[in-house]
């Protein structure tokens, strides 16, 4: 999976949420349904301000429950649709997301994650990794999950997200966080109207004489039929595995590997530099797709590195996937902070050094 959009024009300084919203207009989004919640309200605000006179429509719903079900209706009617929210709002949407996954409708959902659980805090977090990658709602389903780590990727992944959603008829989640949503960075926006669009044959656009009526549903009362539906979905998830995408920084000669996504990976980049200055060969693997996950690449790297250290803004969620990848071949450590607190590059370096020391102590 690569970004295929042409990027022309000048670099702009934009907030992550606004770059995301502008990219959606440029991606020929037909409709956005959303509800305000900090720290993602700028998406709705930007679209309400910018869409008049341009393609698409925006509607502020009465709740996240309503907005995700509006997404279901509009996606079922063949439109390119998107919503966004932050953690508590995404929790409210889970029933609808399960229905959308089951009815095999394409749509894009952004979670600008904030600290939880409960009402939590409005500060950034990565505490929704499990919810995003392991299902979230009821039943056996997955979303494709993309994790941007810059304002540029907040914009780019809108195009990738719609393309994947439509290719696989599946909801795609952009798992961002409050910092990426709020911070301003340089961004070069993709060109308007560069993402092709067709109205799918299965959409409920009105029954014509030359076809049977189209029905969007997730209800299959006969267990034999329901199992077949599930098997088809599982086949689809298998076929998605080829979309796995990750970034490697100074991995070639790395003896120690950091694994981090999103904002945490930005901090880890600095740690890699600090470590290399001290002569410690640290590399970084950043999963870009959190589902599908780069299990195979991490397994390969378990033959190369002494240990892996997973860095997250949560209590340790992705670390479980890293451990699954390496199948016990190398130790997998974890460092993280919660509640909106962010690790410093030095905190991570100290952790690497202390793990390294304890390994040497054992060797002596």
């Amino acid at each position, binding site marked *: 999976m690569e970004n295929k959009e042409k990027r022309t024009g000048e670099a702009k300084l934009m907030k992550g949420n606004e770059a995301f919203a502008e990219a959606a207009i440029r991606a020929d989004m037909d409709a956005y349904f959303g509800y305000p919640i900090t720290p993602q309200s700028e998406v709705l605000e930007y679209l309400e301000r910018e869409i008049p006179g341009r393609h698409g429509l925006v509607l502020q719903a009465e709740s996240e429950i309503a907005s995700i*079900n509006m997404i279901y209706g509009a996606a079922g009617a063949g439109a390119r649709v998107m919503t966004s929210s932050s953690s508590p709002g995404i929790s409210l949407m889970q029933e609808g997301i399960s229905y959308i996954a089951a009815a095999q409708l394409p749509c894009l959902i952004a979670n600008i994650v904030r600290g939880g659980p409960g009402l939590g805090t409005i500060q950034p977090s990565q505490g929704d990794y499990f919810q995003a990658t392991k299902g979230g709602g009821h039943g056996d389903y997955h979303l494709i999950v993309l994790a941007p780590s810059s304002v540029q990727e907040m914009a780019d992944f809108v195009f990738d997200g719609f393309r994947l959603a439509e290719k696989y008829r599946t909801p795609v989640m952009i798992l961002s966080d409050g910092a990426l949503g709020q911070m301003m960075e340089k961004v070069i926006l993709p060109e308007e109207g560069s993402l092709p669009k067709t109205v799918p044959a299965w959409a*409920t656009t*009105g*029954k014509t004489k030359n076809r049977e009526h189209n029905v969007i549903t997730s209800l299959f009362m006969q267990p034999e039929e329901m199992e077949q539906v599930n098997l088809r979905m599982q086949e689809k998830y298998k076929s998605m595995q080829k979309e796995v995408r990750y970034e490697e920084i100074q991995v070639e000669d790395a003896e120690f590997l950091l694994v981090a996504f999103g904002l945490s990976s930005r901090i880890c980049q600095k740690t890699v530099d600090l470590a290399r200055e001290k002569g410690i060969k640290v590399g970084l693997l950043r999963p870009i797709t959190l589902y599908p996950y780069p299990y195979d690449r991490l397994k390969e790297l378990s033959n190369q590195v002494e240990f892996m250290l997973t860095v997250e803004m949560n209590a340790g969620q992705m670390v479980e996937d890293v451990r699954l990848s390496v199948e016990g071949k190398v130790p997998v450590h974890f460092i993280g902070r919660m509640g909106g607190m962010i690790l410093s590059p030095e905190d991570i370096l100290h952790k690497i050094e202390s793990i390294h020391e304890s390994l040497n102590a054992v060797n002596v």
Partner: protein
Amino acid sequence: MNEKLYLEDEENLGTKVEEGYEQVYCRPDTLTDVPFHYCPGCGHSVVHKVLMEVIDELGIQEETIGVAPVGCSVFAYQYMNIDMQEAAHGRATAVATGIKRVLPDKYVFSYQGDGDLAAIGTAETIHTVNRGENILMLFINNGIYGMTGGQMAPTSLIGQVTSTSPYGREAAQVGNPIKIADMLCLLPGAYYVTRQIVHNPNGVRKLKKALLKAFEYQKQKKGTCFVEVVSNCPSGWKMTPVETIKYLEEKMIPMYPLGDLKVPQN
């Protein structure tokens, strides 16, 4: 319609009409050739038939998208030969909003029962009408959760015995029956609100007229049209169909009086 000169009754299904006879009625193309699963005496099948007849007569089969609810009519799409979506419990009007917003020139309707529309979906119901979505909201009020086996609904009557109000509904405990159609009349987005029945021929005729009006108003983009049908549930009420009609007339209609609740103001 005229080319289908076949008898539709069970014994003579597919038989050509004899010479000298004129066919005066047949199943409209908007209904599939699938037998309804509804219990004998239930109003759902009549409402399905009337709604599909109206869509057929208006010639808008190709331009209409329906939204089925969760409840007994969850399988409405098996009988309605139009494009349809099946919504989550309570969310039919949000789904309908999504469809209508991206296909503003199509006709869109939602079809919901009382638990769906007046309990779990109350927020969606109120806000859909408040936005004046140009859709038809069809509301079947039989005062009970039929599909799940006869539990108390928001519209169940005081004293009504159900599986979750085994000693009769008590206002002090669970509140009074909710008259949602009356509430919706307060909203400027509600253009036409009416309450009808289908348990007698006159009621069926009136419902048909109401639905014709609702689609005409939708064409004119006037706002939300809300058509309530006070109906029965022989299985849930634990009565024979004949007994349900007596109960409906003596108990339900006094609580939910029939007729137009809000008509267009010119």
